[in-house]
C-alpha cells in the first residue's frame, strides 16, 4: 500500500504546474541538501551529547576530585587530587576482592548462559514443532521477565523458611536444608543470583543460535549424516564453524550484560550481601557514591568499569572485523 503513495500523488498533480514548482524547490534542495541530514541528526545528537557524552566527561572529571558530601553542599572547597582516588582503590584490598567477585561472577554467568542456551538451541532442532514452540514460548517468558520481578520470585523460591526449594530438599530427607539460608554464605548467594541471571538470559542465546542453525543449508548437514558422521561430530566440525560469527556476537553480548549486572545483585543480596560480601563493581560504585557519599571514589570505580567494558568491546570489534563482518 505504502508503495503506491508516490504514484498516487503523481496522477493527481496537475501537469502544467509541475516544472514551475519543482524548479525553485530543486534550487532550495541544493542548498538545504547539504544541511538536511544535520537537521535529521540534530535532535538525537543533542540528546546523546547531553545524556551520554557530557556525563561520560563528567565521570572522568569527578574521579579526579576529592568529591564528597561536604563539597556537594558547598561547605568545603573542591580540590583536584589527580589520581588519588585510583591510588586509594588500588591499595584497598576490598577493591581487589570486588573486582575478583565481578570477574568470577560474570564469567560463571557467561559460561552457563552460553552452555545452556547453545545446548538447548541444538536440542531444539531435534524436537517436534509443537514441543519446540512450547519451549521457545516459555523461554521468551523468562527472557521478558523484568530483573526485579525475576529476582523477587527466585528469592521467594529459595527463601529460608517459606521457600519451595528448601521444603522439597528437606522433604526428600536432606533435613539440613530446612532452614538453610542461601544468601548467608557468599558463594551460595552468588550461585543463587547467577541461576536467576542464567534463567533470564539463556533464551537470547538459544533463539539467536537456533536462528543461526536454521540458516545452515540442510544439504550440508544431510551430506555429513549420510557420510556417517555422528551428531556431536556434525556439531563440532560443521555447525560450530558456520555458527562462529553468531556465537561470537552472543558471547560478547553476554559478557557485556553480565559485567554490568546491578538489579539482581542489589535486590537478591539486599544491596551487596552481608558485610558487602556479594559486591560487584557496579553495586560497589553505587554504594560508595550514594550510601557513603564518596562521589569521587564512586566515579573512579565507574571509570574502571567503563574502561574494562570498552576493552572488551574493542576486542569484539576486532574479532568481528577478522571474521569478515563489515561495519
Amino acid at each position, binding site marked *: 500500500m*505504502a*508503495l503506491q503513495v*508516490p*504514484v498516487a*500523488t*503523481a496522477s493527481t498533480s496537475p501537469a502544467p504546474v509541475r516544472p514551475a514548482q519543482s524548479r525553485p524547490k530543486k534550487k532550495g534542495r541544493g542548498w538545504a541538501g547539504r544541511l*538536511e*541530514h544535520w537537521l*535529521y541528526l540534530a*535532535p*538525537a545528537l543533542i*540528546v*546523546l551529547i547531553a*545524556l*551520554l557524552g557530557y*556525563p*561520560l566527561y*563528567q*565521570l572522568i572529571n569527578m574521579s579526579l576530585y576529592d568529591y564528597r558530601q561536604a563539597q556537594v553542599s558547598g561547605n568545603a572547597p573542591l580540590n583536584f587530587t589527580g589520581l588519588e582516588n585510583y591510588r586509594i582503590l588500588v591499595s584497598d584490598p576490598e577493591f581487589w576482592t570486588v573486582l575478583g567477585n565481578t570477574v568470577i561472577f560474570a564469567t560463571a554467568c557467561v559460561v552457563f548462559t552460553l552452555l545452556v542456551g547453545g545446548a*538447548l538451541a541444538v*536440542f*531444539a532442532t*531435534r524436537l*517436534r514443532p509443537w514441543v519446540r514452540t*512450547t519451549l521457545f514460548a516459555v*523461554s*521468551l*517468558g*523468562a*527472557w*521478558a521477565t*523484568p*530483573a*526485579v*520481578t525475576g529476582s*523477587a*520470585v527466585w528469592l*521467594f523460591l529459595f*527463601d529460608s523458611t*517459606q521457600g519451595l526449594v528448601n*521444603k522439597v530438599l528437606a522433604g526428600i530427607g536432606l533435613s539440613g536444608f530446612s532452614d538453610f539460608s542461601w544468601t548467608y554464605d557468599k558463594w551460595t548467594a552468588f550461585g543463587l543470583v547467577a541461576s536467576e541471571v542464567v*534463567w533470564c538470559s539463556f533464551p537470547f542465546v538459544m533463539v539467536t543460535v537456533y536462528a543461526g542453525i536454521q540458516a545452515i543449508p540442510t544439504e550440508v548437514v544431510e551430506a555429513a549424516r*549420510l*557420510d*556417517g558422521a555422528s551428531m556431536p561430530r556434525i556439531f563440532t566440525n560443521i555447525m560450530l564453524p558456520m555458527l562462529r560469527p553468531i556465537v561470537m556476537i552472543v558471547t560478547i553480548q553476554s559478557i*557485556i550484560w553480565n559485567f*554490568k549486572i*546491578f*538489579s539482581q545483585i*542489589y535486590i537478591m543480596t539486599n544491596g551487596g550481601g552481608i558485610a558487602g560480601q556479594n559486591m560487584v563493581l*557496579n553495586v560497589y*560504585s*553505587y554504594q560508595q*557514591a550514594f550510601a557513603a557519599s564518596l562521589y569521587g571514589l564512586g*566515579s573512579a570505580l*565507574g571509570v574502571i*568499569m567503563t574502561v574494562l567494558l*570498552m576493552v572488551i568491546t574493542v576486542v569484539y*570489534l576486532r574479532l568481528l572485523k577478522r571474521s569478515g563482518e563489515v*561495519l
Partner: protein
Amino acid sequence: MTTLKVSQPGSVTPRRRAKEKKSRKGWGSNAVGLLIAAFVAFPLYWMLLSALKPKTALDAGDSTPWTLTPSFDSFARVLSVNNFGQYFLNSVIVALSVVVLSTVLAFLAAVALTRYNFKMRTKLLIIILVAQMVPIEALTIPLFFLFKGFGEAIPAVGLNHLGSLILVHVGFSIPFAIWMLRGFVAAVPIELEEAAKLDGASSFKFVRSVLFPLVAPGVVACSVFSFISTWNDFLFAKTFIISAQENSTMPMALLSFFKPDQNDWGAIMAGSVIMTIPVLIFFIAVQRKLVSGLAGAVKG
C-alpha cells in the same frame, strides 16, 4: 568416497531407516524438551500461583503446587494499601514517552545516516556503536548531578520527577535504536525516494509518509526494546526518585514490600505479576517482528 558409493544404490533404505530412528528417538527427546520447558516456566507459574494463594495459606507455609481456593486478596492488598496503581501508571507514562521520543529521534537520525553521504558519516556510526557499549550504570553519579542541575532550572525534568527518568532512558535507547533502524531504512530502495522526489514530495514528506510506514517492523522492534529496558529499570528509578514517593515507578514500589523481618510474599508476588504481564504481552505480541528486527540489526 566409499561411503557414498555404498549408500547410492540402496539410497531409499538408509533414509527410511534414519527417519524411523529419528521418530523413535524423538519420543525421548521430546519428553525431555517438555520437561525443560516446564522447568523454565516454573518460576513464572510459582509467581502467579503464590499471588493467587490466600495469605493465610502462604503464611502457614503451604507449598502445594496448586490452589483450590484462589483469591485476589493479594492483588487487592497491593493495589489499595500500597497504592500500586499509581506506580503502575507512572511506569506506563515513562515507558510510553520513552518509546515515542526515542523512536522518532532514532528514526530521523537513521535516515540521515543511511540516506545521505557526508564526511562524518562513518565516524558518527562508530561513535554511536561505542555509545551503545557505554555501561550506563557507570554514569549514574554524573547523571544524578546533571539532573539535580536540570531540576533547579526546570523542575519537571529534575530529580524526583518522571521527566528525569524519561530523558535518561531516551538517551540510553537511542544508540541501539539508530543501529537497528539503520538496516531497515537502508533496505528501502533508493528508486522509491527518486520517484517521490520527481512527484514533488519534499524530503521530509518522503521520510514521513513513505519511509516511516515502510520501516514499521523495525520501528516496532526497537520500540519493544526501549519499552522493556525502561519498564525494567531499577537503578535510575532508585537513584533519581528519592523523596517524591508519588513519582516512584513499579520496581521501587515492589522493593518497598521487602521487610527485614517478615516479607509479605503474597503481595510481592502479586506486584510482580502486575509488573510482568505488560512486558510479557508486549513481548509475545511482537515476537515474530522482534526476531526479524534482530536479524535486521545484525545484518544492517
